[in-house]
Structures are given as C-alpha cells and as structure tokens.
C-alpha cells in the first residue's frame, strides 16, 4: 500500500485547564481520497484541521500523538521546516469566505503571493495559473476580479476565489472546513460541485469537515464520525450509510432530514445514546495517560 497522504495517530489535545478537546484521534487520508469528518458543533472537527495545518490556537496544547504528512512526521521537523512542508503540500478552504481574505489587499496579489513568494514561481507563470483556476471555478471576468478588493465580491464569489487559490499551488491535501456553511443554499450546491469537480481533476486528497450527512454522501469515499473529540466510527461512506455500526452514527442519521419525509426524520439525537457515549468517554478519560512516546507536534 502507498504512503498515506495524511496520517493522524492517537492525537490528543487539551485546553489550559487540562480538559481534552481531542481524545486519541486516529485517522488516515489516502492520496486522492476524500475523507469526511462529521460530528456536531464543538466535536473538535476544526481542531483536527488546525492541528494538521499547524495553526492550533495557543490555548490548546497537543499532549500526545503524531501527524504524518506524506510520510514525514511533522513532530520531527523544526517549526520552520514544518511550516515550509505544510505550506508546500497543503491548503485550506475555510468556512467563512468573508474573513479569510485580507480586506485591504486586492484579490490578485493575495492569490499569487503563495505561488511566487513561497513556491518560488515567476510571476507570469503564477498569473497564468490563477487565471486558469479562476476559469475552472467559473469566474468569467478574471481581470476585474483580480483587481477587486474582497468586499467588492459576494460571498459565493469570494469562496470561488478561495477554492481557486487552494488548488492553485497543487497541494496534496486540502482541509475544507465546512466550506459551504456560511453561504446561502442555492450557492452551496454550486460550490460543493466545484470542489468535487476540481478534486477529481487534480486528484487532491481532502479532509472535508462538515456536519451535514447529505454532503458526506455526495462528496466523500470515507467517513470519520467524531463525538466530543473522540472518533466514534470510521468506515467507507457507502458502508456507513448502508449499515452504521455505532448507535451514535445511527442516531445522527436519524436526525438528518430526508427529502422524502422531512418532518418525520427531524428528531434530535436520542438522549440514551448520548448518555451512553458520555459515560464511555468519562471512563476512557479516567484511564487515559498521555502516551508521550509519540513525538510532540507544535
């Protein structure tokens, strides 16, 4: 089997007060594969993405585990080297396209910056590249858009720009953190289709954070279900939908509205299931000691 694009092994992170936000998370993203990361709000989905990209907030500390990017253990690298590797191999498609672009800089230089100043491309090549990608995300007037400030574009346009920028550097792994949540429903579908299309065309692996099982079914081949920072179930997407193993997954699926019978399925996740999970996690926390043998990652 080839080296996984991303391998997270037993990653735990705590707040300053010692409370764990990630509980020995392990997951793998194979090259070219889309892995969905689902779970309700606060489950720690974004934290996993931030840990991979090396941008955890300072209040959160990794206490055990290993993150391996295309065979390189990030914990073994100097901060500078790990920044360089992350910069060369990964990209983020963020949740909020409003704050993810610098309001006081024009779109053009923001998009080419990384290609020219990090990857060392000459500016003509970088310019051709982003124009090609703007075309791929169906932006028809690249000249005008490149000269715009972010506030001059709608949310959907900004997200297209961010998607183009993410794919422009040919990363091996993209972390997409709820890339459609901040957009209105009609735009959501277009954006999702664009990401899927570019993913297939470029063969980029994606760690796709979402809380929407409908999106999971559409875009991913693998799923990781997260609850309170703990992996509850991992499976092939098709297998998971056909036969969810864990009670929490079944409850989550039951809580997702279906088009056929929207009202009937709008049930909250079953109390008993949550109580069982919480008890399980409490026991695990009591018995947990950080396995410091795994190299730290900052």
């Amino acid at each position, binding site marked *: 089997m080839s080296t996984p694009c991303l391998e997270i092994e037993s990653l735990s992170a705590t707040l300053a007060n010692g409370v764990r936000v990630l509980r020995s998370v392990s997951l793998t993203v194979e090259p070219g594969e889309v892995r969905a990361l689902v779970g309700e709000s606060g489950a720690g989905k974004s934290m996993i993405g931030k840990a991979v990209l090396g941008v955890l907030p300072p209040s959160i500390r990794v206490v055990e585990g290993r993150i391996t990017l295309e065979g390189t253990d990030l914990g073994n690298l100097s901060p500078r080297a790990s920044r360089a590797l992350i910069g060369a191999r990964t990209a983020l498609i963020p949740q909020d396209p409003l704050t993810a672009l610098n309001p006081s800089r024009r779109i053009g230089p923001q998009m080419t910056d990384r290609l020219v100043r990090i990857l060392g491309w000459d500016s003509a090549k970088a310019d051709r590249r982003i124009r090609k990608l703007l075309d791929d995300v169906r932006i028809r007037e690249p000249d005008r858009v490149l000269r715009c400030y972010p506030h001059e574009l709608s949310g959907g*346009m900004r997200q297209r720009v961010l998607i183009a920028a993410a794919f422009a550097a040919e990363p091996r792994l993209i972390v997409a953190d709820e890339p459609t949540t901040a957009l209105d429903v009609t735009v959501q579908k277009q954006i999702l289709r664009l990401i899927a299309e570019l993913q297939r065309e470029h063969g980029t692996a994606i760690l796709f954070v979402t809380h929407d099982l409908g999106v999971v079914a559409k875009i991913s081949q693998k799923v990781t279900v997260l609850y309170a920072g703990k992996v509850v179930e991992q499976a092939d997407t098709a297998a998971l939908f056909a036969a969810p193993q864990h009670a929490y997954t079944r409850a989550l699926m039951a809580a997702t509205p279906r088009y056929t019978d929207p009202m009937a399925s709008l049930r909250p996740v079953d109390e008993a299931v949550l109580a069982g999970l919480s008890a399980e996690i409490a026991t695990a926390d009591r018995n947990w000691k950080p396995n410091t043998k795994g190299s730290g990652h900052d």
Partner: protein
Amino acid sequence: MVEARQLPRRANPRLWLAGGWLLAVLMAAIFAPLVAPHDPLAQDLMLERLPPFWVTGAEPGYWLGTDSLGRDLLSRLIYGGRIAFAVAFAAAIAACLTGSALGLVAGYFGGWADRIVSRIVDIWMAFPPVLFAILLVAVLGTGLSSVIIAIAVIDWTRFCRVVRAEAMSQARMDYVENARIAGFSRIDVMLREVLPNVLPTIVALLSLEMGIAVIVEAILSFVNLSISTDDPTWGGMIAEGRLSIHQAWWVLVFPLIMLILTVLSFSQFGEGLKSRFDPVLR
C-alpha cells in the same frame, strides 16, 4: 456572473478643506522669506499696534496689523508656522514610528512581548503629560529639539495602545491564519497582512498627533519653555497678545485662530485620509 458591488465614490469636502488649509500654511512656512511681507523681527515703534486692514487706522501693507513692538503680525504668523510644522512633523513621526512598531509587535505576537510593552505603556501613562513635558524640557534645556523629543517621548503611547488593539483583533482573523498555512513567517504576516489593515488608523492618528504637537509646542512657548523668545511662535504670540488684549485684540486673536484652524485641520485631515485609505469604508 461577477456580482460586484460598486459603491458610488463620495467626494470628501472635509478632507479637501483641511488638506487645503494645511498645504497653504505649510507652503507659506516653507517659502516664508518670499511670502512674508515684512521681517518678522523688525520693530518699529512708529507702527505699534496697527489694527487689521478693515479697521480704521490700518496701514496699507500690514494686513493683520502689528503688535506692541510694531512687528508685522502676518509675517510673524507665517514664520511661526515654520516652527509649528517642524515640531508637528518631527515629533509626530518619531512618536508614530516608535509607538506603532511596539504596538504592532505586542498586538500581533502577544505573549511576553505584549506583557512587556503593555507594562511599559501603563507606567508611562501614570505620568501627567503636561507635567512630564515641562519636566523633560527643563532637563533637556529649551530649544526646538528638546520640544520635539519631549513630545515624542510622551506621546508614543497613544500610537502604541491603539495599534496594539487593532493588531490584536486583526491577528485573530482567518486571513492571518491562511497566510501562516501558506508558509509565511510571523514577521512576514505581521508586515504584509496585518500592517496594511492597521495603516489607515495609523495615518489618522499621525495627523491627529501633528495637531496635538502644534498645541503642545504652543503651550510650551506660552510658558516660555520652547525655543528662544526671539523667533516668532504661535504660542509665544498668544502669550504676548494676552497682555495687550484691551488695546489690540488682534494680537491675541489671529494666532489663536491660526492655532485652532491648524489643529482642527490636522484631525479632520486624518479622519478623511482614514476613510479614503480604508477599502471597506471607501
């Protein structure tokens, strides 16, 4: 397809009015020897306390009248602008560079850098500024450079506080995180991503500070702590005018008007520039 929102570009009269006034005073100050109708120091007791041109008894050529030693007021105001602007630019720029640099580092890096800078600012601000200024000038000795140093040393905290707060809120933005992910160093992110967003505020503060420096210089001249008393300064003129307010109101009123208009223009110009610079407000 491109759903760009184009806001109509509003003309900004206060920016132009304030900027126009400042430019006029600045130009007059720079070219004072060519512009001033008389020698600002030339005394003529035959011409003392001449009123401004629209009052009966005015002498042609002495547009704003003369003071109690017969010196031409307009010429003195023009020469006084030289000192006012020299102090305004030098002191405000020095305060701005120091304060903004420290504020930017403290706000963006946080942690111990922030703790150290914030501590120093707190200690600094515990001194009452006017007393601080008088003390400093007393120690450094009177003179143009002491005045400039005193203002810069006291007022850098104004920049530091505001820039720190702005940098801090910008540092939390996703675009900063995005630049880090792309592989840019912290210094790079600070200078290329955060600084441009703080710049409009810095520019506005800089202009405001120039106005403040003009006032402080006037106060120091007023209490005779600024430069040598021979050179005309607006503060010095106000001090002299106060003594003859009943015989010749204009000796007090013209430098006062000059001072107020200039200080007001600096603050308005700063605000105008800020909204001009800021792509979101624009």
